């Protein structure tokens, strides 16, 4: 009979994923008005004017978003614990899944600090400086996609190795994560466009890319909870 796995705190950590998405959407998305962002061809005066008029809500949104950014990493570590039940504990895939989640936390923290900076004293900054901070934040959060792809590929490949008759995480969901991680590559063309489908505000590089990732988190969390129940019953 195999030793019982200690699953204390796993569920709490798994809840951090949906919590992160909810906070991110409300604070970064709504309060920070990033859902969707200004199109790149928006005049600097318009972007700066918006920051000056809404500095309070942007500051609040970014402060809370930064506070809850580590929740994504915590969630990722919980997923890696479930992955350990599929492949060896010290498998490189488990480590990549962890580090990918940790890196993603950084790529959320840093850009939110740029938006926060733009809202800190916008009255003292020229329009172009606020626009530059805004652009910097978006270029980083979009083009750092590969760190999240690392997490998604590691989890997907690892869970696809599950030899159980009924895998802990269903195959379609593992493949979905791999597909999303692959889809992020489209962000590479984002810096070349100021408007249209491929710009940071466009249907591909904003709506599709963000929604397929944000949808992945709660769906995977649901199946992860089921997996924890099965692990406890082993």
């Amino acid at each position, binding site marked *: 009979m195999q030793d019982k796995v200690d699953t204390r705190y796993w569920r709490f950590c798994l809840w951090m994923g949906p919590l992160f998405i909810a906070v991110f959407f409300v604070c970064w998305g709504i309060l920070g008005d990033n859902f969707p962002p200004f199109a790149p061809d928006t005049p600097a005066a318009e972007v700066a004017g918006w920051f000056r008029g809404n500095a309070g809500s942007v500051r609040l949104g970014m402060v809370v978003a930064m506070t809850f950014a580590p929740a994504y990493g915590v969630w990722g570590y919980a997923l890696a614990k479930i992955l350990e039940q599929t492949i060896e504990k010290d498998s490189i895939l488990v480590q990549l899944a962890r580090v990918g989640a940790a890196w993603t936390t950084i790529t959320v923290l840093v850009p939110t600090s740029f938006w926060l900076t733009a809202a800190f004293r916008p009255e003292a900054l020229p329009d172009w400086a606020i626009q530059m901070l805004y652009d910097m934040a978006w270029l980083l959060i979009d083009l750092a996609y590969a760190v999240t792809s690392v997490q998604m590929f590691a989890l997907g490949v690892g869970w696809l190795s599950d030899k159980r008759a009924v895998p802990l995480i269903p195959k379609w969901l593992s*493949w979905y994560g791999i*597909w999303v991680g692959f*889809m992020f590559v489209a962000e590479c063309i984002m810096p*070349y*466009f100021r408007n*249209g489908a491929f710009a940071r505000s466009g*249907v591909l590089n904003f709506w599709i890319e963000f929604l397929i990732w944000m949808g992945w988190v709660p769906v995977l969390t649901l199946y992860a909870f089921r997996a924890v129940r099965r692990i406890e019953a082993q």
Partner: protein
Amino acid sequence: MSRSEQPGDSGVWFFIFADMCTFALFFLIFSLGRMAQPALYEAGRAQLDLMLGLANTLILLTSGAFMAHATRQARGGNWTGARRSLLTALVVGSAFALTKAVEWATKLNHGIGLTTNEFFTYYFVFTGVHFLHFLIGMVVLGVLIGRCRRDLPQADRLRWLEAGGAYWHMVDLLWIVLFAMLYLQRAA
């Protein structure tokens, strides 16, 4: 003998279908763009090399035929034949990379690039994303060639051959649409 069992792997099919849906969105975006600026798109289309486009199509269809043949050979237990067919599929398919390189290089040498106009933005992005899928497909073919030799259960080997084959055929069918949409859609 039952025909009701789905070939390949359900997870891989999910990936394939998701990719096809993404391309469906690309086709919609292009089509809406063309509705808004038909003259621009026709001028762009007229600058494409129809013969190279046809060559691309025939290359992928031929490679696909060898892939399909490999699957049938494997199902009959002829793994040596399947491996040869896969190798042929890989070699024939690699010609696509050459024709694409020639096509893109010709455009770029004439000063036509990603940001020239909306038609060529979509042309380079969609054929570029398709090319990425093609490259992955080449890797998949290579892996399948290796797996033909390995001492694995026949059923598993066949399942992965079918799954890899399905991916390669997806690359083929997406090009069929791209060819019609980009090259053959002549304005009245």
